[in-house]
């Protein structure tokens, strides 16, 4: 990362201290002091709210720590216990299942919407806004709406199934359907944001490419396949990475939709929707196992890191940057 001081040294920018532009001289004490003063809020934030918690988390993961009494060193016991904990593995599987359903569905749907709405029509901005509304709604509101839609007794979803001649389903109360239902609602809420990213990507593709393709006799599908998709591959990569991280960190939605509204702990029915972050929250904040929860956090971090690295490596094969 280039800092102000680097830039001053390189002589690429006017210095903040004394206005000298001759890049050969090292900054004086005044410049350094003022750079420190201006950087202080960010540095303080970084140290106090990021670096220190990360270091503390590393330490706590190696201790038995209940937050009320002093941590007791247990070495790698938390990690050993974690790898043998059936509930942890189930939460990881639930998270993976959620990701497999959510990431491709949201990505494809967002792309299709963006292509459909990337036109100069009269009401197009209203339509784009309509798809974006769920993005700015809170999960509590969305949770109540979803509860009304998927309620097995009175919900609209079962009414629709009835019109189609299908039997009613129990949706969020079913151990089989709860994760697909959560994924469906998550797609509904998140697709507008990803659509906006795709729209930005689409609008960056030069019109001449489409004209050239048309002159060469390319069909609409061929133009989409050969011009649009490569043109937005960078955006697609961004959408995939963001969606994957979102699913691995899923908490708010699960917490709101699978528990408290029915006066029960989150993750219902009976742990079928317990994702890894919820598992971590319950261990740390409900069961006083903060050391164990810290170990979960590290494993989750490692997973997100590895997945992102894999995606970064794979993107070289299919992402085209202009």
């Amino acid at each position, binding site marked *: 990362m280039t800092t102000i001081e680097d830039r001053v040294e390189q002589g690429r920018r006017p210095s903040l201290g004394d206005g000298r532009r001759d890049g050969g001289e090292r900054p004086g004490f005044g410049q350094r002091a003022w750079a420190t003063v201006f950087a202080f809020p960010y540095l303080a934030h970084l140290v106090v709210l990021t670096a220190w918690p990360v270091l503390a988390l590393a330490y706590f993961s190696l201790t038995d720590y209940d937050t009320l009494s002093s941590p*007791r060193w247990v070495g790698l016991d938390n990690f050993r216990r974690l790898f043998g904990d059936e509930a942890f593995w189930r939460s990881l599987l639930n998270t993976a299942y959620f990701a497999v359903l959510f990431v491709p569905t949201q990505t494809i749907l967002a792309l299709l919407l963006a292509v459909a709405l990337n036109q100069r029509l009269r009401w197009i901005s209203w339509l784009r806004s309509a798809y974006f509304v769920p993005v700015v709604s809170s999960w509590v509101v969305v949770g109540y709406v979803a509860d009304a839609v998927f309620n097995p007794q009175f919900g609209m979803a079962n009414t629709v199934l009835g019109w189609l001649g299908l039997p009613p389903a129990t949706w969020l109360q079913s151990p089989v359907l709860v994760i697909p239902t959560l994924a469906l609602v998550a797609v509904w809420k998140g697709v507008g944001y990803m659509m906006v990213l795709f729209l930005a990507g689409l609008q960056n593709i030069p019109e001449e490419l489409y004209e050239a393709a048309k002159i060469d006799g390319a069909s609409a599908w061929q133009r989409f396949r050969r011009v649009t998709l490569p043109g937005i591959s960078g955006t697609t990569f961004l959408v995939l990475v963001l969606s994957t991280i979102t699913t691995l960190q899923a908490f708010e939605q699960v917490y709101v939709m699978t528990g408290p509204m029915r006066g029960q702990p989150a993750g219902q029915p009976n742990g079928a929707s317990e994702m890894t972050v919820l598992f971590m929250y319950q261990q740390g904040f409900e069961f006083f196992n903060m050391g164990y929860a810290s170990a979960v956090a590290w494993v989750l971090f490692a997973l997100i890191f590895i997945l992102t690295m894999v995606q970064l490596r794979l993107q070289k094969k299919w992402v085209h940057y202009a």
Partner: protein
Amino acid sequence: MRMQRFSPGRRLVALAGVAALAATMFGCGAGSAESDGRVTIRLGYYAEAGGPADKTMRSLADEFMKANSGIKLELESAPYTDFFKRLRTQLAGGRGPDVWLSDGVLVQEYAGRNSLRDLSDFVKTINTDDYYGVDLNRDSDGHVYGFPQGAQTPVLFYNKKMFADAGVAEPTGDWTYDDLTAAAKKLTRDTNGDGKPDVWGMRVYSPGFTESWWPMIKAFGGDIVADGGHKVVIDSPQSRAGLDWMLNAMYTEKAGPDVVTTKALGSPHTMFASNRVAMQFGIYARTIPANAAKIDLGVAPMPKGPAGRGHVAIANSWVVNKAANQRKAEAAWKWITYFASEKPQTNWAGIGEAIPINKKVAASDVFLKPGTPPANRQAFLDALAEADDLGLNPVWTEYTTAVANQIDRALAKEKPVGDALTDAQRDAQQIIDRFYANK
């Protein structure tokens, strides 16, 4: 733009300013609490801001300070969930309240983690026979870490109008679980003609197990933990009989909504108040929503099972921070005994949230004949006198979650009852053993 170069002195001033700002941001200032000679204690409690409980607590605190001029109370309150979240953070940072109101099931969780002062010596100075619930806070070694503030115990709630409309005789103290099933079956109706019941006789299942499977298992002779909360004993034929009764009532007799339907109907606490069920096991606090909905409310003793009525109780309690010094602890104890005395308990009973722990107040018309249903409030007192605790120990939340997960699966018919009980016993025992092994 050319910027002015500052002198070393001005730089120093600027840096000092930043340091001062940082010091303010990170809260270096801790006020002195006892500068006027009075002992100041921070008192925490959970209540909705501005609600009846909050207002009553503040007025009682004012009266207490008038009567005890040497003690100043600083009140800290928040709604239940926020209060306990904040409390955990405060205690972790060494800045917890000196005395706070604890959910009864959490007293041993905090005591077991060395956060609470042992009140045994204070408790010896009073006659504990004058109060309900003192023994519910006694741990396996006989220490008392909390003193009751208000008590809760489930009894059988019933809707008198629904019973009259169906021509069913109201529950009595002689009812057995068979009588309960038979009456519930008669009260179950399909009101919209779709071939499925939409009003049921009894809410059999609830995620709040104090009003569901816990007393039922006990009534059939089973139990959840023994040996002072050290040993899980739920895997027994008696527990199985209790759960089988529930399965039979929900799925065979169809006298109560099954697990999925119960959850689909929203909060289980609103089902009785919305006339969805004619009966439920309910703690005293459930009289508030029932009366607010103008239900023609009656209460009766819990039905008799093969091994009794399975009474359980929770005593929400005042606890004292272990970090509080002797002077503060004595002031806190003064507040606790004040709150347990007749006038504050009478005021508190007026809110209708809890059974008074002062036996005189509980036996008075203030509690027994307040002018609002239910009439037979003596049922609560009879239950309280016989009630066991809810298997309290320092890992109560974690082990009961593990047990509830398995039992809920059995009651949702996702797993055979026998397997669920075996797994519940194994999972819960592991949690308890792990805690004590590390202590």
